[in-house]
C-alpha cells in the first residue's frame, strides 16, 4: 500500500496544476503598461473627425478607457453596464477600433452613448501602443494619466463592484495629485 503513496501524490499534484491551468483565461495576459503613463496619442473623435483629442487633454481626472467596436458581441453585452456607470457619473472615454464610423455611430444612437468622448483609431496605430489584443478591453487611468489597471473582456457587475469600483473611488478621492 505504501508504495502507491508517492505516485498518488505526484498524480494529485499534476491534476491540480492542470486543473488550475484550465481555469485560466489565456486572453488575460498581464499588461506591461500598468503603472506607466498612457501612450501618447492625438486622435480624431467619432462625433467630429476634424476635432482631435490628445492624451494631455484627458488629464485632470481619472477615467475608464474602453476599447470597443460595433461588430463586437461582447461589447454589446457590456454596453448596458457602461450606460449605468455613465449615469452614476463615471468618466468613460471610448476608443473605437477596426470599425466603420457610420456603424459605430449607429450603435451609440440605438443603445445610448455612455462615453464622454469616443476616439477613433482605424489604422490600428494607437491600439498597438495601448497593447490592445481584442475588444473589449478597459483601462483605468488616474488623473495624472497613469494606467492603474486593465480589464480584458466585458466588465461584469461583479468585476465592477469587487475590483474596479474600489480602485476608481480611490483614484477619485486621491485626485488631483501632484
Amino acid at each position, binding site marked *: 500500500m505504501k508504495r502507491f503513496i508517492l505516485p498518488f501524490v505526484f498524480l494529485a499534484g499534476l491534476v491540480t496544476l492542470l486543473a488550475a491551468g484550465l481555469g485560466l483565461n*489565456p486572453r488575460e*495576459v*498581464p*499588461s*506591461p*503598461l500598468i503603472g506607466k503613463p498612457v501612450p501618447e496619442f492625438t486622435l480624431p473623435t467619432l462625433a467630429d473627425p476634424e476635432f482631435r483629442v490628445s492624451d494631455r487633454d484627458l488629464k485632470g481626472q481619472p477615467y475608464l478607457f474602453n476599447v470597443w467596436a460595433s461588430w463586437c458581441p461582447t461589447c454589446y453585452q457590456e454596453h448596458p453596464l457602461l450606460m449605468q456607470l455613465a449615469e452614476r457619473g463615471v468618466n468613460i472615454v471610448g476608443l473605437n477600433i*477596426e470599425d466603420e464610423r457610420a456603424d459605430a455611430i449607429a450603435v451609440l444612437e440605438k443603445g445610448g452613448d455612455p462615453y464622454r468622448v469616443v476616439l477613433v483609431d482605424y*489604422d*490600428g*496605430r494607437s*491600439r*498597438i*501602443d*495601448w*497593447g*490592445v*489584443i*481584442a475588444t473589449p478591453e478597459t483601462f483605468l487611468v488616474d488623473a495624472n494619466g497613469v494606467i492603474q489597471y486593465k480589464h480584458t473582456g466585458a466588465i461584469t457587475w461583479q468585476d465592477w463592484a469587487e475590483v474596479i469600483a474600489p480602485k476608481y473611488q480611490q483614484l477619485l478621492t486621491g485626485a488631483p495629485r501632484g
Partner: protein
Amino acid sequence: MRRVVKALLFLFLIASPAWAIDSFQLPEDPQLLARYQALSEEFRCLVCQNQNLADSNAELAKDLKIELVELLQAGKNDEQIREFLVARYGDFVLYRPPVNSATAFLWLAPLIAVSVLGLVVLMLWRRGRQTETATANDEQVAAALADLKKQKNS
C-alpha cells in the same frame, strides 16, 4: 470506386497549403524582407495565440506586420523591434520567452522533470538489486534447510 479514390488522391496532391496573404507593401530590399520574414515568425499573434504573425490573418496581426515593416524601414535593429513589442504586449508576444523570475519555472521545469525521472529510475534499479540479493539469500536458506532435512533423515 477506384476512380473516385484516384480523383480524391489527386485533389490532395494539388491542394496547396493556405498561406496568410499580406495585402500591404512588403520591403523590397531583400535583406529587409529576410529580416521581416524571420521576425514575423518570431512573434505571437495575440488574438489567435497559437499562430505566429506570419501565419495569421487577424486584424491585429496585420496591423503589427505593417508596424514591423515600418520599424524595419526606419532602420531599427531586431533587438529594438523586440523591445517595441514587449513594451506593449509583454513577454507573451515572444515565442521564445526570456529567462526572468516569472519564467524561471518554465525554463527549469524540463530539468526538474529529468532529475525526478532519474531519481525514480535509480530507486527502481537499487530496489531490483536488493530483490536479487534477497532471492539469492532465499536460495541459500532453502539449500541449508534441505541439508538439515537430509541430515535428520539419515
